[in-house]
């Protein structure tokens, strides 16, 4: 799990506009986890299929947080 200190600065409550699906590559499955490398930064933004989002700078911890569903906020 990503600790609270890591998440505190990066928590997002509403999806930013750039997180719309890429054209032509919408995924068929309903249970999709997404990690975007935020353009212009070194940050990763994770979005769970339940809508929860978080940012982190380490991909391993990002997946740990996402795949802990539904334990994340």
């Amino acid at each position, binding site marked *: 799990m990503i600790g609270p200190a890591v998440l505190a600065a990066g928590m997002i409550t509403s999806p930013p506009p750039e997180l719309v699906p*890429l*054209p*032509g*590559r919408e*995924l*068929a*499955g*309903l*249970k*999709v*986890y*997404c*990690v*975007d*490398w*935020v*353009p212009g930064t*070194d940050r*990763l933004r994770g979005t769970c*299929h339940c809508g929860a989002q978080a940012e982190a700078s*380490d*991909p*391993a911890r*990002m*997946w740990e947080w*996402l*795949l802990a569903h539904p334990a994340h906020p």
Partner: protein
Amino acid sequence: MSAFVRNQWYVAAYGTELGHGLLGRTICGEPIVLYRTGYGQVTALADRCVHRRFPLSESKLVGDTIVCGYHGFTYGPDGHCVAVPGQQRIPRTARVAAYPAVEQDSLVWVWVGDPGRADVSLVPRAPWLADPGYTTVRGMEPLAARYSLLVDNLMDLSHETYLHGGYIGTPEVADTPIRTQIDEDNSVVHVSRHMDDAQCPPFYAKSTGITGRIVRWQDIEYHPPCLYLLHSRVAPTGVLPRPDGTDPDGFHVEVVYAITPSTPDSTYDFWAVARDFARDDEGVSQYLADSNRTVVLQDVDALNLLEQVIAAEPEGTQELSINIDTGGLAARRMLARMAGETP
């Protein structure tokens, strides 16, 4: 070292490799002999005679039966022994395992796990390889490395910039942020890298004729453990698919890899490049075949070296992951889950 994921379909050969002869391949540690019957059916049997363990792949195909090259034990396509030398009675246990096998999209898939779980509807698809609308070049290179190293390699294409510069790599590949998605319902990992204004590497410049900068999209679709698809689109900068979804001005290349574990430290690296342009141009076919084989061999050299390094290190030696590894880590997690390990 990762355990084999046995209850999955693996590519054992190209359909074109199976004429009316015997082909030996080791899949997930299982020696298998492959052949095609007179009716065209692909057959996969355990590659060891039950008598003295002689490889059946080094034996003789007579009609639809294999006659062991050592003492003549003879097996039918179902693996049952139909003749033994010098006696009438065939021992009840004289049979070799027959593996479920399917030929689809020009690939021969086998199942080495529990036969009762072999569902042919779950064989992943690579339809371009058998589509008359595409022209395909292909090959297979043996890799002296564990299969997970090839998965890591293919899931992070930023290595193209450094390992394959001058062929398929340009600076933009490593510099462009990626989107990674895990589709849990369908057990697929997607990695997308869309470059809006990039150098055109020779691989695409010489095959498409584009002379300037390009839009280059790389959309990876990995179906663990075996099938890796790279949907590649290139076009002159600014040229995008039309609003209705058609894309007559784009050049499309479907790069297909089948990553088949052979032994714990060796892998079959099947590769194919299917294109929807210059389909009848033999020169383009030869160029793409030579170039892609060169690129694959660059990977093979690097991964063979990496295998030696990793094999000499203690288990669990620390490594470091950064943003470019997001897709590779997702693939590792899915493979670990399939293998029944804790991710």
